[in-house]
Every structure is written in C-alpha cells, then in structure tokens.
C-alpha cells in the first residue's frame, strides 16, 4: 500500500533524472576539473570555486543581480498590488483587462528584448524621441550605462508586473464580500479595511508573487541579452549572462560548471531565506 505512491512517481522521476538529476551530477563532476576542449581533463578539486569568488566580473554581476532583483521587487509588488486593487471586480472590461495583462507574459523572452530594443534604439525608437521632447536629449541605452540599467529595469517592470497583478487580483476575488461589509459596519476606514482585511488575506498570493519574481528575476537572461547584450561594458551583465558567456563562449568548461553550482545554490539559499522571512513577518499566523 505504501509503495504504491512510488509507482505513481516513476514517470516524473524518470523525466527529472534526465532533465535535472543527471545534469546536476555532471556539473558537480565537471566543476572539479579543468576541461579544455580537445585535451584530457585534469583534476583540480576546489580550485575552480576559489577562482570564481576571486573573479571581479563574477562579483560585479552578483552585486548587479542582487540590486536588480531588489529594485524590481520594490517596484513590481506595490505597483501590481495597486493595479489589482484598482481594477473593477466585475463587468465586461474584466475579461479584456485580463487578456491584455496576459499578453506580455506570453511573448517569448527574447522577443520582449527585441520589442524594447526597437522601442528604445536611438535610430528607430519612440523613447529617445519622447525623452528629447521632455528635455533629456542625450538618452542612449546602448552607450550610457545609467540609461541601459533603467531601460532594463523598466522593461522588466513592463514584462512581469502583470503576473503580480493577476496573482493579487485572483486573491482579491477570493475574499468574501461579507468581510468588507462587517468591517464597514464596525466603522473601519478604507485604510484599515485594506490593512486588516485585504492584506492578511492576500498574504499567500503576495508570498507567491515575491518568490516567483525573485527566483525568475535572478535567472533573467534573454531580455537583457537581446536589449543590451550585457553592455555597455558590463553595466547590465547579470549572473545568467556571465554564466552562459563562461559556459559556451569560455574555454574552460570546469570553470563554467563551478560558476553554475555557486549560482544554483545561491538562488535556492536566497529563495529559502526570503520565504522564511516572509512567513515570519506579521506573526506568520495565516499558515
């Protein structure tokens, strides 16, 4: 009876062994060797890992990555929650709003990069024109590091805030109307209705939104790759761009593998930390 569960898990475990387990073991194995194409690998133990943490480009990408994830969380979560609260709860526009919100989520990620490139390039985009009209004529996302950074951040806000809106909106729809009626009878202000009725009920949706956005922003690759190529210089080189540069274009696969492992465990560690902190904020009562 108890073993029956394992029979049901066989298909999933078979797929995951090909798509996760064996690859992970391979990376761990590679990471301890120096592997140059065309010559036999030789064992170097932990040396690759030490080198990773001494590489200024890695440390730079890590710093940018953390900063980027924090910035987009600080913008996307309040904005998404606000839009979800402001959307009408019923009516004929609801369906269309949801469709429109879904569109950015279903565009291939590199096409998102291309859209924003077409939109912001100085020779064919609308954005430089708008900035010039506003009095900021020197906007150039492919030459000016500051402009490139904020263009990538804006692109991510454009791309992923709809996910936060959809998650929060679904959470708001699930709150029974009686809660608000009761709060109104008790004379609660709009703010305290939000603070003591909506927010606690939305806790799970918000945790999910923060975690998904954190994990996925930490993996971001195709969009900045297509928009800026990681440049100018290394101004928008995030961890994925750095890792794949080392893994595909780089000459030492062992080094690429070591970076991969550090990166992998960093995401898991940070996600777990974030999850624990969020569960404990506000007493962790609703779980």
């Amino acid at each position, binding site marked *: 009876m108890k073993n029956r569960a394992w029979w049901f898990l066989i298909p999933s475990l078979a797929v995951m062994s090909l798509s996760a387990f064996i690859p992970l073991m391979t990376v761990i194995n590679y990471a301890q060797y120096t592997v140059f194409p065309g010559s036999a690998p030789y064992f170097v133990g932990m040396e690759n890992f030490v080198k990773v943490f001494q590489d200024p480009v890695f440390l730079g990408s890590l710093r940018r990555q953390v900063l980027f994830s924090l910035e987009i969380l600080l913008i996307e979560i309040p904005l998404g929650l*606000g*839009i979800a609260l402001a959307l009408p709860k019923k009516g004929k526009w609801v369906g269309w709003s949801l*469709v429109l919100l879904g569109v950015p989520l279903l565009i291939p990620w590199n096409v998102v990069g*291309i859209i924003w490139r077409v939109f912001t390039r100085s020779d064919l985009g609308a954005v430089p024109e708008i900035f010039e009209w506003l009095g900021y004529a020197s906007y150039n996302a492919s030459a000016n590091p500051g402009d490139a950074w904020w263009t990538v951040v804006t692109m991510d806000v454009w791309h992923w805030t709809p996910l936060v809106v959809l998650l929060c909106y679904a959470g708001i729809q699930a709150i029974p109307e009686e809660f608000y009626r009761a709060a109104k009878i008790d004379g609660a202000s709009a703010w305290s209705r939000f603070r003591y009725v909506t927010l606690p009920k939305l806790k799970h949706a918000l945790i999910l939104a923060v975690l998904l956005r954190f994990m996925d922003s930490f993996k971001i690759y195709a969009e900045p790759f297509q928009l800026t190529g990681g440049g100018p210089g290394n101004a928008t080189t995030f961890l994925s761009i750095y*890792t*794949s540069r080392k893994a595909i274009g780089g000459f030492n696969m062992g080094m690429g593998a070591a970076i991969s492992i550090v990166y992998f465990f960093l995401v898991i560690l940070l996600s777990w930390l974030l999850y624990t902190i969020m569960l404990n904020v506000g007493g962790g009562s609703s779980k």
Partner: protein
Amino acid sequence: MKKRNFAVWIYFAFLLMPLYWMLNTSFKTNDEILSYLHWYPHNFTVQNYVQIFSSPFWRRGFLNSIAFVSLNVLIVIVAAVPAAYAFSRWHFRGDKHLFFWLLTNRMAPTAAFIVPFFALYSNIGLFDTHIAVALAHALFNLPLAIWILEGFMSGIPRQIDETAFVDGYSFPRFFTKIFFPLISQGIAVAAFFAFLFSWVELLLARTLTSTAAKPITVTLSRSLGAGGWDWGVLAAAGVLTMIPGALVVYFIRNLMAKGFAMGRV
C-alpha cells in the same frame, strides 16, 4: 473612484505602447523605419509579413517551436498527474523532501544547466531534436505542474475516492470516469503554464538545437545578430510570435483568475 481609473488607464497605456511601436514598425518599409520617426506607417506595407510566410527558414522555425512545446506539455501532464495524485493522497517516507527537491528545480537558474545538458544530450544522441528541448524544459515545467495539480487535487475531498472504491470502481475506472473530470480545470491551468514557459524560453532551446530543430525564438535571435539587420522583418516576426500566446490567453481568460488563486505556497 475617478483617480483610481486614471491610474489604471495610465498603466494600460504603458503596457500597450511598446506593443504598438512593434506593430507600427512591422508595417513600415526599412527605409521609413531608419530615416523617419513616424507614429504610424506612412507607406503602409505588408511586405515584411509576406517575406516571412514565403520563406521556409521562418516557417520551419514556427513549426519546430510548436512541435517541442506540444511535446513538452504532453510529457509534463502525463508525468505530473500521477505524481500529484501520490503527493495529495498518500504520505510516504521522504515525501516532503522529495516535493521540496522538485521545487528547487523550478528555482534552478537555466544558465547553470546548459553545460551538462549539452554534454548529456550530445552523448545520448538527442542533440538537435524536439524531444531534447521538450525534456530540458521539463526541468522547470514538471515541478510547477505537480505543484499546481497537487493544489487542485488536495481541494477535492478524499471521501470521493473512498466512496468510489466502496462502490466497486477499479482504480483506472475511478481515475478516468470520476477523478479526471474533477481536475480537468487544474490540468488546463497546468498545461497553460507548461505552454507558457516552454514557448518563451530561449537559452536551453538555443543550446540544444542547431539546424533541424531550431525554434522561432532562436531564429529571431540569430537574425538579429547577423549584419544588415532587417528591422521590419524582425518586428513582423516578433508580432507573429505573440499570436499563439494571445490566443491561449483569450481562450482561458475565464480560468485565469481561478487558476492563479489555486497557486499555493
């Protein structure tokens, strides 16, 4: 009330503007794109689209994408349904650890997996096939599908299973006749997410294909890198890649709010 609507309108304008610019660019000639900044095409042309539809190079990209995305959805659903059932109905040794391990793969940065994927799939002869990309995308889609389905299934009372068995239903018959219809919405949501993340992914699809199975996203990326950029064709191809996604969202728009509410932590 008024202020609130205003904010929503501004937000939707922000959402639509880059999309409009892409559409606008796709109907212009290259001459117009590069020499003037027009807010709408003055020399309206569908030449960019004609060029895509008449080129086997672009067509094959679309077909390849559709092939591996469908395969991925199939693999993910077939594997995830029984697994989610096991997690939602039975306690067994190590179930919590296994569930957590599965979820860590949803967090895994894909860039960290390109080296071993390439090595593994080249060695077993799967490189540049649709099945390779479909399997690789299961890395993040299967855990997510199990997670979503487990949530749906846990919402269905256990008594339904027990009553069915008491009534003499065999397990396969119970599953197909009673349980499957109950979770069909959950399956739709899980399939939607599998479709979504497989359709939009670039890095693994690019690493695991070269010519025979090259998807449209990669075709787009590569043609951008080549010299003599044809922005009009690129914009048109970008617009075309948005259509399948928009269709999917349109058909499941009523399911969407419900599906997202089911996503649990």
